């Protein structure tokens, strides 16, 4: 039996991440929510977002460990480039595996790299295989580029979109929804700037640029800056969208005309 898109809920990238990693109470609540709204679909673009966040963060941790001469140096490097969030990921892994940092550094390096390299593979597999239907309405070129873990190479980079590496249909996709986007622009423009999130401000800018230029400015990293909008537009062909990004979708869903279920992540976090 085939399931049409209208019969399934689209899950946002953050929901798919919360169903894999995080406090157990959050993971359990997300899985339960997904089961209630089964079958669920995922946007192919979510793969790009996941790669650009979790996978690249973990990859950064492995590289800093490999290039450092001590745990202190490794942690300082992770803090300097990945920030607190990435450092906490690293610290949690160390605690989970009860790392013994009194061992010689080369031994600690080997153990950490073993754990992290396998974790990178597992996360990518679980994220992409954990859902049956992947929607790829605009045939995203970046979503087709899986991370490469081979030999001693870990390639998790996401190239900027250029003529020679991009063969997607995002312009057609944007044009197809142009009337709704104009309406959204009018709606968001009437909201005081202070109430718009930084992502919503970028969305307004990109829509205005599209209207002015008569074409979607797809070069570079435009799509990655307006991920919420792209996923919201894709959810229009589904039952609706499940997301924890309340600030963006609470404002966009009524204007664009899609159903939105909020997952209140803070409610399920351990206090």
């Amino acid at each position, binding site marked *: 039996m085939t399931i049409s898109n209208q019969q399934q809920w689209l899950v946002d990238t953050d929901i798919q991440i919360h169903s894999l990693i995080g406090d157990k109470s959050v993971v359990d609540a997300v899985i339960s929510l997904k089961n209630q709204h089964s079958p669920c679909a995922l946007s192919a673009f979510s793969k790009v977002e996941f790669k650009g966040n979790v996978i690249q963060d973990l990859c950064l941790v492995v590289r800093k460990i490999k290039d450092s001469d001590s745990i202190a140096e490794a*942690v300082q490097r992770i803090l300097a480039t990945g920030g607190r969030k990435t450092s906490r990921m690293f610290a949690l892994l160390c605690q989970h595996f009860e790392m013994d*940092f009194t061992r010689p550094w080369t031994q600690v390096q080997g153990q950490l790299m073993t754990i992290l390299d396998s974790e990178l593979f597992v996360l990518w597999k*679980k994220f992409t295989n954990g859902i049956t239907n992947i929607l790829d309405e605009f045939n995203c070129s970046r979503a087709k580029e899986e991370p490469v*873990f081979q030999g001693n190479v870990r390639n998790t980079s996401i190239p900027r979109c250029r003529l020679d590496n991009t063969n997607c249909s995002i312009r057609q996709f944007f044009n197809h929804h142009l009337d709704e986007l104009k309406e959204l622009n009018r709606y968001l423009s009437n909201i005081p700037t202070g109430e718009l999130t930084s992502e919503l401000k970028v969305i307004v800018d990109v829509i205005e640029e599209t209207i002015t230029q008569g074409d979607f400015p797809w070069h570079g990293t435009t799509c990655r800056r307006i991920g919420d909008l792209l996923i919201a537009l894709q959810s229009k062909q589904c039952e609706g969208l499940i997301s924890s990004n309340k600030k963006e979708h609470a404002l966009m869903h009524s204007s664009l005309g899609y159903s939105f279920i909020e997952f209140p992540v803070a409610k399920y976090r351990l206090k």
Partner: protein
Amino acid sequence: MEIENNRVSVPEIYHDAQVQDEGRKNKVVNINSAPSYQENYRSNDELFRQLRTVNRSSKKNRKTESLSSVGRAYELIGKVIYEDVTLVERSNLFDEWKEHLLEISYRSKEADINFRQILGFVLSAVNKKDVIDFKKEEILIFQESTNILRSINPKKIDVEKIYRLLDNHNLIEVNQFFTGDEERIKDLDDYIDILSKGAF
């Protein structure tokens, strides 16, 4: 080589190569009392069929071996499924096998990513667990994973296959390394500060 009591003893350094060739060319002495993995899998046709595919794909890579503990780890996990051992012996052998894998991970910085991935899958699957937590067919997968690790450069197809086998038995878990728990975050930040000063 020396002959003692009708058995041939070989220096430990050759153990890996000996075990590796065992059962293939029928010319190598039995240095390992544990049955070969083929013998173990006979009771489980489906698992044997899946794992045989792994062996075929990685045959060429089984020639070199730099991590001598892997051969010993393979012996140990073979003995874990040997039916003549008591539960206490089995548990001790299993823990010793885990320790060997951990030792191997200490020396795996220069190894191939595929090698570390397979090793990491197994270490994660057995982290804080005992032998009684696993079924026989799951231990057979650990044995085959250890067998593949005897190659210094396992292929990607080996990684995929071992991942799939372990995942089919729910032995692949994502480690929970995100948290929004405020108290936990504070503890982690303190821990990060300790690590960044090298003060442990």
